[in-house]
């Protein structure tokens, strides 16, 4: 096992195209690091440079304690698993796994032992004498992994190993690779374009775009503190909602986000970065789960829902005095009491009406405050015109528009979900919103906040 260090690794092709603009990365011994990014971002090229299949134009690559820039692949003490398995078609499973060991002139008994051991770990025992074309896709990928394991390399490289498998098998193999990593305690560099794979497998994730590292962080770090707009939208599914606008200070000294295109305002309350963001063009980023269903707007003329609201039930109602975009009458305070005839009003909508006294952990502190003080409002209300409703069983995705703005919300399942064409009211947890500088795309970081 070994540590892998990339220092200013660049790749410039002969035609002048710069594929990788200088990657700095330190992979600790035994660490599982995922390189993720859209196609053409340079992640595979970076991996192939580590493998020795592509020459390194500039920079320094260290594996273990050795600089290996000019060391051929076979002497780098690494093994690689390819996207298309790359099994030798005319060799049996056993021969495929034994090939590298034979080339190393290991004694036959040792080869036999290692191959059988790997086959056992991967459940390939009965298939050893079969040819690759007689195997299923999942079995082929396991053979490819086995071929890497038998070499007992210091570093494992994976190049999108799961993208040719069907969805169910992918989840299964994903877990298998994670388990192997734990058992072998190996250093792993793993390339994928799938952010779910990256989030579930990596100890740390390197997000690449256009040949540059955008951010290196733990999965939760990336999710909670994306350094720029690219990372923010790339990580997380469905993607983060983005609204262009600016931050102003309201009459009561409270920060307010004002959208550029639409007549739309959201209170920012005690948002840590609000002060830093005032006065410049920004992009507000809202994760779909930060938008929650506060009620339907099917019949706004029925005023009964408002009337029935008992005082003090929850934080969803904006405090008086907050400017709050709520075009239709009655929508601004849409939380009805349990038991009213409104079917879409669920017990489980994360949004807003926790029974008094429960602490809603999903919210940052401040939102559980039953009666928010002026200037501390966290929750705004948005009316959403639904375009599509995707019930996924454990959750429902609501896609829609607010004026010209596309938005997606992720809400808890309910017996009768709203239908496309309807208008619903979303509660917005704007204290958890991300604020990005519109010009540079970088996240606006408040004082005392972790970058």
């Amino acid at each position, binding site marked *: 096992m070994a540590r892998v260090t990339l220092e200013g690794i660049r790749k410039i092709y002969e035609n002048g195209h710069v594929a990788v603009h200088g990657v700095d990365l330190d992979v600790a011994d035994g660490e599982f690091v995922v390189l993720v990014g859209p196609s053409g971002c340079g992640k595979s090229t970076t991996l*192939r440079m580590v*493998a*020795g*299949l592509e020459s390194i134009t500039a920079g320094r690559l260290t594996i273990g304690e050795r600089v290996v820039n000019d060391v*051929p*692949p*076979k002497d780098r003490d*690494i*093994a*690689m698993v*390819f*996207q*298309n398995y*790359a*099994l*030798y*078609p*005319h060799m049996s499973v056993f021969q495929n796994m034994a*090939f*590298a060991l034979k*080339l*190393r002139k290991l004694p036959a008994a040792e080869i036999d032992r290692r191959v059988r051991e790997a086959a056992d770990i991967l459940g390939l025992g009965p298939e050893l004498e079969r040819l690759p074309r007689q195997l299923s896709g999942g079995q082929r990928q396991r053979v490819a992994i086995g*071929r890497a394991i038998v*070499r007992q390399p210091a570093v494992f490289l994976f190049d999108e190993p799961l993208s040719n498998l069907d969805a169910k098998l992918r989840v299964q193999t994903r877990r298998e690779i994670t388990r192997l990593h734990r058992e072998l305690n190996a250093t792993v560099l793993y390339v994928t374009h799938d952010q779910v794979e990256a989030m579930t497998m990596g100890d740390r994730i390197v997000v690449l775009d256009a040949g540059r590292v955008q951010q290196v962080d733990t999965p939760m770090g990336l999710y909670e503190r994306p350094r720029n707009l690219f990372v923010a939208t790339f990580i997380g599914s469905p993607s983060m909602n983005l609204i262009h606008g600016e931050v102003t200070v309201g009459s009561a000294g409270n920060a307010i986000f004002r959208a550029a295109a639409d007549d739309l305002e959201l209170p920012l309350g005690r948002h840590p970065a609000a002060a830093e963001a005032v006065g410049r063009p920004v992009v507000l980023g809202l994760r779909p789960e930060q938008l929650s269903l506060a009620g339907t707007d099917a019949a706004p003329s029925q005023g009964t829902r408002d009337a029935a609201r008992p005082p003090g039930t929850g934080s969803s109602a904006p405090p008086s005095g907050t400017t709050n975009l709520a075009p239709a009458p009655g929508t601004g305070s849409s939380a009805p009491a349990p038991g009213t005839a409104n079917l879409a009003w669920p017990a489980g909508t994360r949004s807003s009406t926790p029974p008094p006294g429960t602490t809603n952990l999903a919210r940052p502190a401040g939102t559980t405050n039953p009666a928010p003080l002026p200037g501390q409002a966290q929750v705004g209300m948005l009316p959403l015109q639904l375009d599509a409703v995707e019930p996924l069983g454990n959750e429902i995705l609501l896609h829609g528009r607010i004026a010209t703005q596309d938005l997606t919300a992720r809400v808890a399942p309910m017996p009768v979900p709203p239908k496309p064409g309807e208008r619903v009211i979303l509660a917005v947890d704007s204290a958890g919103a991300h604020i990005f500088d519109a010009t540079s795309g970088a996240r606006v970081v408040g004082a005392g906040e972790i970058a």
Partner: protein
Amino acid sequence: MNRRLASVLLYSTLVIGALLSLLPILWMLSASFMATGEASSYPPHVLPDHPTLEHYRALFTRLNLGRSLLNSVIVTVTVTTVSLFVNSMAGYAFAKLRFRGRDRLFRLLAAGLVIPVQVSMLPLFLLLKQMGLINTYWGVIIPGLASIFGIFLIRQYTLAFPDELLDAARMDGAGEFRIYWSLVLPVIAPVLATLSIWTFLSTWNDFMWPLIVLSDQDHYTLPVALANLVGEHVQDTELMMAGSVLTVLPVLVVFLFLQRYYVQGVMAGSVKG
């Protein structure tokens, strides 16, 4: 009923066609066993009255055709095996190895395909004469050791060989020759079979070049020796037929042996274009 009639018609047409094309070959075989003069008798005989091996005996003893057969075998086997090796290495390199000027060089080679063989015969002869190779086996063998057509065929086929396999082998620690030998060759076996049949056939049947280069009867290959026979024994049909059987037989055997791969190779090439 209609369908059945159609298939009966189809198959009988095919059988008749097959018989028609087989007829000359069968008659050649039959006539080679006839006594002298029987083949040209009237009414013609389909089968020999008294089968005899007299002509075969004459070919190997009096006319020394055994020597020519051996010459043909030496030349053809050498050319086929060596050219297969050379062409496959070159074809693989043009398809998969990255080196400066590769594509330009290949285009130059491909352009050479349009030059007819006859055009190059005279300069080639003069070249070999300077090298002192006229009237030797080498004079026949060397020009056949590499062929543009063979390189072209193998390159086109090998282009479809997945690069990831080469990468995997390099990671596994295989050297370039090992990759070519243990990985590429087994996988491109169909096209190798096709090329070897083609090379074997064309070298075995080649008449013009051996005739030009070889002047000594001891070095003659079968087609050249047989042509000599025609001059001397123009009346002796049965002897000629025996000689022809001797010439055709090895080619037939090789073809039957490799035809399975041959078809595979031709198909593969056509699909990929």
